[in-house]
C-alpha cells in the first residue's frame, strides 16, 4: 500500500496498475493505493520498484486520460438525519439541501461492499460526524454523509452515515461486469426532486 498526495495521482496510478500484467489487484483508498503482485515471482521489493516506475509514468498524465462521465442523481430529501444535520450545523434544512446539491462531486473510490461510492467534494459547512452508534440496517438507495464524504448505499446494509434522502438510481448490477457504473474519477451531482 502506498500513500499519494492527491486523488488524481491515485487514480492515474490505479489505471496504469490495473492494466499492468504483473499487478494483481489495485484498490484506491482515500489517500492510498493498495496493489498486490499478480505473478508469483514478483517480490515485495520488485513490486515497489514497479510502482515507483509506474508513478513516474503516471505523473505527466495527472489522471486525465479520458473525459470522466457525469451522473446526475435525483434525490428525495426525506432522510431520517436531515433535521439532526441542520441542528448540528446551525443551518436550516433547506440550506443543508442546497449545500448538498451545489457541488459537483468526484467518485474518490468504491469500497466497503457492492460498490459503495465515496464521493469527495462536500461543502465543509455540512460535514458532520458519523452516528455514535451505527444503524443495523440502512435501506438501499439511501443518500448519506460520513467520514467527510457523501455516498449512496448500493444495497441494504448496516451503516453509521447520516441519512439525507433516497434515490431510485442504481449503480451496481452484479450481473454486469464491471458491476459498478460509477468509476473512480467520475463526476456526480445531486438534484432534489
Amino acid at each position, binding site marked *: 500500500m502506498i500513500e499519494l498526495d492527491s486523488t488524481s495521482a491515485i487514480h492515474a496510478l490505479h489505471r496504469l496498475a490495473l492494466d499492468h500484467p504483473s499487478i494483481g489487484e*489495485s*484498490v484506491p483508498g482515500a489517500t492510498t493505493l*493498495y496493489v498486490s503482485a499478480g505473478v508469483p515471482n514478483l517480490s515485495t521489493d520488485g513490486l515497489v520498484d514497479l510502482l515507483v516506475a509506474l508513478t513516474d509514468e503516471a505523473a505527466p498524465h495527472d489522471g486525465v486520460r479520458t473525459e470522466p462521465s457525469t451522473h446526475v442523481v435525483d434525490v428525495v430529501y426525506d432522510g431520517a438525519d436531515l433535521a439532526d444535520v441542520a441542528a448540528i450545523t446551525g443551518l436550516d434544512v433547506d440550506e443543508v439541501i442546497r449545500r448538498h446539491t451545489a457541488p459537483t462531486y468526484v467518485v474518490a473510490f468504491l469500497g466497503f*461492499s457492492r*460498490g459503495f461510492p465515496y464521493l469527495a467534494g462536500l461543502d465543509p459547512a455540512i460535514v458532520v460526524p458519523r452516528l455514535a452508534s451505527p444503524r443495523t440496517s440502512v435501506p438501499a438507495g439511501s443518500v448519506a454523509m460520513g*467520514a467527510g464524504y457523501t455516498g449512496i448505499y448500493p444495497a441494504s446494509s448496516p451503516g453509521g452515515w447520516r441519512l439525507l434522502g433516497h434515490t431510485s438510481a442504481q449503480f451496481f448490477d452484479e450481473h454486469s461486469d*464491471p458491476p459498478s457504473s460509477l468509476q473512480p474519477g467520475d463526476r456526480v451531482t445531486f438534484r432534489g426532486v
Partner: protein
Amino acid sequence: MLPVLIVGRTSTLITVQDLGRAGRAHHGVGRSGAFDHASAALGNRLVGNTANAAVLEALLGSFTLVAVESCVVAITGAVVDLSVDGRPVAMNTAISLAPGKLLDAGLPEDGLRTYVSICGGVGGPIVLGSRSYDTLGHIGRGPLGVGDEIICAHSEVITPPWFEPVPVAPIARPVVLDAERGPRYEWMSEEAQRALVNTTWIVDPSIDRIGVRLRGPKLERRANRVGLELPSEAMIPGAVQLPSGGQPIILGPDCGTTGGYPVVAVLTRRALNVAGQVRPGDSVRLRLR
C-alpha cells in the same frame, strides 16, 4: 439437469465457495471464497478437481446430503463423525456414493468449517467470475437450505479420485497465527506492539466470514494517533484491524474492500486458513515474522 446431491439437513450455514472473486475489489466487490483454502484444496485434490472447483462450506457440521446420481465426494476441514447409510466412513478420502445413499456429518469435535468436494465441482451460477457466496455483499447463490439441490459443474477432472484417507494434522494448540507487520503497525503504542504478540487472545463469540474478533488487553494507540480517524483504505482478508476499542479483528474472506480502522498486522495465507477454523473461546497467539 438432475441434481447430484440434495440437502437433507443443514448446518448453521452451508454456502458454495471456490477460491473467490479476486481482482474486483476496486469495484467494491469482496474476495469471498473458502475461508480455509487448504481444506477446500485438499478435498478438490482427493476427488481429482482443479483447485478452483467450487465446494460446500458447512459451518459447525451437522448436515446430511442425499445422493441423487452416482458421485464421488470428499469431506475435509473441521473433523466430524461421518457415515453413509449409518456406516462410519473416513474424512480426507474420496468416497463413492450410489444413488439414494445418505451421507451424514455430525458436529465437529475440533475446528469450525467442514468442506464437501464433489468430483466435477459444485455447479451453479457464476457471478462476477466466481460461484462463491459473499455473506456481506450478498453476491452469488445464497445459503443452502433443506431440500436444495446441488448440481455438478462437470468441470475438468485432472486426476483419478484418491480412495485412501490421507493424514491431516490436527490444529496445533495453542493456535499460533503467523503474520507480517501491517501498514499501520506504527499506530500502536510500543506497549501495544509488545502486547499484540505476547498476549494469549481469546476468540470472541461474534465470528463470521466477515471477521474474527479477539478478546484481550486493550491495545492502545501511540499518543500522537489517539482520536485520529484513518482515511478509508483498502482492506484484505487476513488483515488484523484495530478499532478504537483496542480489541483486534482478523478480517475474513467476506470483509469489506475498504475500511477506516488501522491495520496493524496481516496474516499469512496459511494462518488465515487456520483462523477460519478457530472457535469461540479458543486461545490464539499472533507471531510476527
